[in-house]
């Protein structure tokens, strides 16, 4: 029988009694993992207690004020790599990777997208060829955040070009320190480089770095992507908060910039932000005991469209000030800064919200087919060997 709330709390209290949070941070985190208090819904021995996911908050409550992991830097590891390793990894892989992933000793990145394979991820062309018990990987990946300080990557590569595209893929853990891995910052329209291009040239990976069966990479990747989308659409905000809150503050502070045109548009967006917030709350209520479903795609759609409209209105209402930009310097950044940067940055960066993590077009397809049950379009690529597809 799974542990109940009280039992989980006891574990946390006992752990805290036995470990000094004022001591070495890393030691504390490793011990917390070993005590099963990293993610309670993971199995025992892998940082969890085999408890219900919702009970994590009990642990967080008891361990508030103790050393914490860095969710920003560890996003890909925690949100995408970990659930995939748990679902498809061997015991050895789970044992090897999950602990340093959670403590943050090893940072992870994602090698999925390619210049030639955007929405149509399954058409990707990075090759992995077997050679003497190892895999030799060649290709180019793109939109990889954190690649330059990552120890490991989750990687999907083509191992069989002679079968239809979804069937010839295999999922790997890629050693980012291996020879032949080259990381180059990719500059965005905001001026900065939040992502990278990663060039893989004759990169050799042991077969023990394969995750799941040969040719089963598409199915493995679905687990990863499903977890990504939930993360994007999911954060709770308070009424009038988030991006609409930023805009509302500007509005309140600049009576001279107000016009009826701007006012009417602001009011519409405020209402839309509010109903979107409520729908997010309702969705979280629905999911609280369940699994991520396709409805989350709708929230991401709404979020992208709202962010774009709000940030566009912000630049416009600032008028003269909106004609300036805070900083075009080409430099690396670790993520999106919607609060600390200027309105122009927000406007430009928000354009990516409808592209990254599934374009709005793909998400509408997903809603139409998986939520509404509408028939798919005629497909021309389902049964054609990958190597014969038109490019």
């Amino acid at each position, binding site marked *: 029988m799974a542990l109940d709330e009280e039992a989980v709390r006891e574990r946390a209290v006992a752990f805290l009694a036995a470990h000094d949070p004022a001591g070495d941070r890393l030691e504390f985190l490793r011990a917390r993992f070993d005590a099963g208090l990293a993610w309670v819904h993971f199995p025992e021995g892998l940082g969890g207690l085999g408890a219900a996911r919702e009970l994590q908050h009990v642990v967080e409550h008891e361990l508030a004020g103790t050393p914490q992991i860095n969710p920003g830097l560890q996003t890909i590891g925690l949100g995408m790599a970990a659930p995939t390793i748990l679902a498809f990894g061997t015991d050895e892989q789970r044992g090897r990777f999950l602990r340093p992933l959670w403590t943050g000793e090893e940072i992870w990145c994602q090698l999925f997208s390619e210049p030639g394979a955007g929405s149509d991820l399954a058409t990707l062309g990075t090759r992995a060829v077997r050679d003497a018990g190892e895999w030799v990987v060649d290709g180019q990946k793109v939109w990889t955040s954190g690649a330059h300080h990552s120890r490991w990557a989750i990687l999907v590569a083509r191992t069989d070009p002679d079968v239809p595209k979804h069937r010839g893929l295999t999922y790997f853990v890629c050693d980012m320190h291996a020879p032949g891995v080259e990381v180059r910052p990719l500059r965005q329209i905001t001026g900065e480089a939040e992502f990278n291009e990663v060039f893989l040239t004759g990169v050799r990976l042991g077969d023990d770095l394969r995750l799941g069966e040969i040719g089963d990479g598409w199915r493995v990747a679905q687990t990863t992507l499903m977890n990504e989308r939930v993360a994007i659409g999911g954060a709770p905000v308070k009424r*009038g908060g988030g991006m609409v809150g930023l805009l*509302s503050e500007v*509005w*309140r502070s600049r*009576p001279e910039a*107000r*016009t*009826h045109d701007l*006012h*009417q548009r*602001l*009011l*519409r967006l*405020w*209402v*839309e932000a*509010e*109903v*979107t917030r*409520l*729908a997010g*709350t*309702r969705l979280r*209520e*629905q999911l609280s005991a369940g699994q991520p479903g396709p*409805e989350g795609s*709708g929230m991401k*759609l*709404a979020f992208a469209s709202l962010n774009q409209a709000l940030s566009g209105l912000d630049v416009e209402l600032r008028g003269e000030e909106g004609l300036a930009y805070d900083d075009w310097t080409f430099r690396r950044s670790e993520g999106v800064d919607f609060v600390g940067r200027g309105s122009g940055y927000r406007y430009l960066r928000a354009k990516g919200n409808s592209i990254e993590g599934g374009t709005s*077009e793909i*998400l*509408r*397809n997903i*809603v*139409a*087919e998986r*939520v*509404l*049950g*509408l*028939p*798919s*379009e*005629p497909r021309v690529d389902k049964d054609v060997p990958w190597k014969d597809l038109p490019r």
Partner: protein
Amino acid sequence: MTLLYTEVEEELRASVRDLLTDRCPADAVLKRVESEAPYDMDLWKTLAGDIGVAGLLVPEDYGGAGASAREVAVVLEELGRAVAPLPFFTSSVLATKALLSVGEEDLIQELASGEATAALAVSLAASPYRPLPETVTVTDGGLLNGEIRAVAGADVADVLLVPVGTALYRVEAENARIEVLPSLDLTRPIATVTFSDTPASALGGLDVRSVLNFGAGLLASEQLGVAEWCLGTTLAYIKERRQFARPVGSFQAIKHRMADLWLDVVRARAAARNAADLLSPPDGVEAAGGRELAAAVAKSWCSEVALHVAEESVQLHGGIGMTWEHPVHLYLKRAKATEIALGTPGAHREAVAALADLPAPV
């Protein structure tokens, strides 16, 4: 609070839906609206009495169910989904809410049981944010004179509740002149109500604004029901209907529009639920502003969504959607009429400006 439906609410929904499926199918509504009796008062007796929806808002002491706006909202969703020609919104919501605030026990009991039906004699287009036009006067002897236009539910009411200034008056409907007009919404016709030295009894003071606000917040749930019917019916149609040897619903441009409509309806449901929840007791401290804001958000959003989904529904039905024979026009007309009813979307957004501190230009 929860934005989900409780088990009790789902049971109530099931009873109402079963009854309406059985007794109020679209073709029956279509026939009825042009008959002598556009309202189905037999069905109303069953729904009000047997299922007990007429007394939902009424405390148990007064013979009601002692339920809340949440349950009322669920019933409204179902009535919207059926464009049912029934006086629930006019009698059991608006009139009952007004009576509850003046505490008129006997009449409340009659309404709660479904024995009598009442209508609040205000224009359906009245806004909660503007003073009512003062078109009715009271003589020293307590007689009413004047007219009120575009009153919904008056033609099937036994009793009219007439706000004059800050007071509410009771008039027996048989003593007033009630002239039904050809109405855009065939399933909830409007009437001009005229008083000429009509006897009336004063019931007490009424803040009609709060009744209209309450009604507007709940009308959002009816609009949600309209939108849901249109979305579901259109989905079923485009899965079936073929053009170019493919289901119309397999064309990507159509699929994307449906996905957007669905997203609008998902948000309408959350907004309508939120309003219903906040309009239910207990009235907390500082809850009034939150209630008004929730109602304004829900009514403005759901009005536009219901209308947009209904319009898209006509379009995606193609030619058949333009025919009288297909019921989708009844929903389009209901959606357009409720856009105007109890404050347009723009009027509610103006209220949002005040409640969310987003001041207008000076």
